[in-house]
């Protein structure tokens, strides 16, 4: 077995082993395991965003504004329906346009030469502020019954369907298309990629726009489920998303990683969080504060481990 392949296997083995350990931990603490599906719904939202984030990080970029774009889309949905009185279908369309537009703004800024970190840091605040202004910091409730009923299709929450569709698309695009190869190339060495006629700017623009689009879909699914749109929603979600990508083994500097790894990372981060929450009722040491510390330490450890393993 070549050292490359062995390295790959070891690199993914730790997250997978932790995933299994996490599963054992969580299942041992629940007396009603089927209800875990309810707990996993917000994690499906994180997962959908993480798949797109993987592609972005592969190019060496980052999108810190996903939470804010989602909140903005949700608020646009609520405002169009309640304030402007648009029919719900049109309001949903408006929300998608808002999210995609937000993503396009990110894409435009990055293509114009701004570092993705700086650009999305700024838009993170900008979109959140817009959401607060549009909604007048009020929540919107009272979406139509027909809309909320759609939150479960075929007995499964929409968020899971969304994750499924995004995961499959992501797997195909990133690992089986030229576009995917372009992402890896750009992340590995942008200048070399340019010389190889890779349209790196178009790749960037497309990725950030899609990130905004998926954020808007996540927001719509959440509105369907909770019957509420708040400007404060999805705060902090970008960090969870990035944690999933990094724990999975995608290098933050780009050029290495993949969608499958992110899915494993999602499992680890989700189970870690759920497991610690479940344990906290049995183990006195696990107060809310110490849970934060424990999660942080474990994630740092994993990220460092992955970086060291993946470096040549």
């Amino acid at each position, binding site marked *: 077995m070549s050292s490359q392949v062995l390295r790959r296997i070891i690199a993914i083995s730790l997250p997978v082993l932790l995933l299994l*350990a996490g599963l054992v931990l969580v299942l041992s603490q629940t007396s009603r395991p089927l209800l875990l599906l309810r707990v996993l*719904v917000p994690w499906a939202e994180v997962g959908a965003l993480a798949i797109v984030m993987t592609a972005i990080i592969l190019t060496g970029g980052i999108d810190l504004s996903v939470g804010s774009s989602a909140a903005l889309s949700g608020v646009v949905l609520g405002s169009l329906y309640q304030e402007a009185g648009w029919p719900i279908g049109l309001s949903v369309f408006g929300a998608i346009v808002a999210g995609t537009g937000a993503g396009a703004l990110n894409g435009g800024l990055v293509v114009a030469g701004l570092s993705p970190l700086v650009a999305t840091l700024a838009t993170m605040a900008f979109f959140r502020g817009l959401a607060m202004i549009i909604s007048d910091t009020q929540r919107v409730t009272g979406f139509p019954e027909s809309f909320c009923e759609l939150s479960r299709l075929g007995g499964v929450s929409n968020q899971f369907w969304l994750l499924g569709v995004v995961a499959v698309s992501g797997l195909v695009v990133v690992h089986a298309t030229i576009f995917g190869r372009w992402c890896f190339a750009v992340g590995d060495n942008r200048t070399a990629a340019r010389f190889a006629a890779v349209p790196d700017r178009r790749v960037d623009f497309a990725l950030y726009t899609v990130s905004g689009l998926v954020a808007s879909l996540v927001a719509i699914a959440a509105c369907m489920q*909770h019957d509420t749109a708040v400007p404060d*929603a999805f705060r902090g979600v970008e960090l969870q998303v990035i944690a999933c990508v990094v724990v999975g083994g995608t290098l933050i500097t780009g050029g290495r990683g993949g969608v499958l790894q992110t899915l494993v990372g999602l499992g680890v981060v989700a189970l870690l969080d759920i497991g610690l929450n479940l344990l906290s009722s049995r183990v006195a040491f696990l107060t809310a504060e110490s849970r934060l510390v424990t999660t942080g330490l474990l994630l740092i450890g994993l990220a460092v481990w992955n970086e060291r393993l993946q470096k040549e």
Partner: protein
Amino acid sequence: MRNSSLAILSAVLFTAILAGCDGETPEPGETVPDGRSSMTIGVMPKLVGIGYFDATQKGAEEAAKELGITLIYDGPTEARSEDQIRMINTWLTQGVDVLAVAPNDPEAVSKTLKEARELGSDVITWDTDANAKLSERTAFVNQADNDELGRALVQLMVDGVKGRGELLEGDYLIVSGTATASNQNTWIEIMHKVIAEKHPEMNMLQHLTPGEDQQKAYEQTTEALGANLKLKGIWGITSVALPAAAKACRDGSRKEVYVTGLSLPDLMREYVKDGSVDRFLLWDAVDLGYLTVHVAHALSKAKLESGKRDFGRLKGVEVRDGEVLLGPPLIFDEDNIDEYHF
């Protein structure tokens, strides 16, 4: 060579983690009661990490010990309903018999509370209510009658300003908590009503909502003090808002502003001792936690009928159409503040 040592290291780590996990799961037959042999009550405050909800935790734990039930007392680190919803769903997987929640936003949580009921847990609210119809919560453990509390807050200010020999006319400010919490909003409504009826010369400014954040409350109050040089009085109506307002007035040397409201004796002791604050009110927060657990437990036996009844060491508690009232508010001042420790 390096690759195989990495493989061994991974295997060792894996075993260590598994071993660590197993070590924390109680074996069957251990003294920790599991959800099957006794009742499990989940009590969730608006957030954890502030003195008020530490006090309610003490009371809840006291009642849990008395009744011999398993208590899960936990909440999000920030006062956000998104986090509360996640935590509620996590608890449901552990099988709670009764869920007692202090919702940050009465609307956002109500759907989840209703679903919890459908999944077999009984639901009550405490400290602040949810949307009663939407959530179908069985009872609301309220610290005091909202009307009584609102009037008492107004009276404290009126007595305080008049007691200094001043006229009531002037600008007044309320510093609240989160913009959506229904308990604060109800009190603000009542205060406005009482003032409009009985003391219309008091001009009420737009209230502040710095969230359950003492630092933010301090900053916003300081700003407001700077913008309103003729402020006569400030109410701080959350446990963190009042000490923040007192500090802001003290630091800004605004002795002419009369500061009162509600907060914990432990948080207010220094301000009462140095004269920044005269009197303020609260209720026994420890008793509120105690009562919440007792009400949750009582519900498992029978429906709560309106009238007066005893809950553990709290006698003669009034139950009114699904609302359980802890009792009249407690007024703290220089003379009695050292008797209380929460």
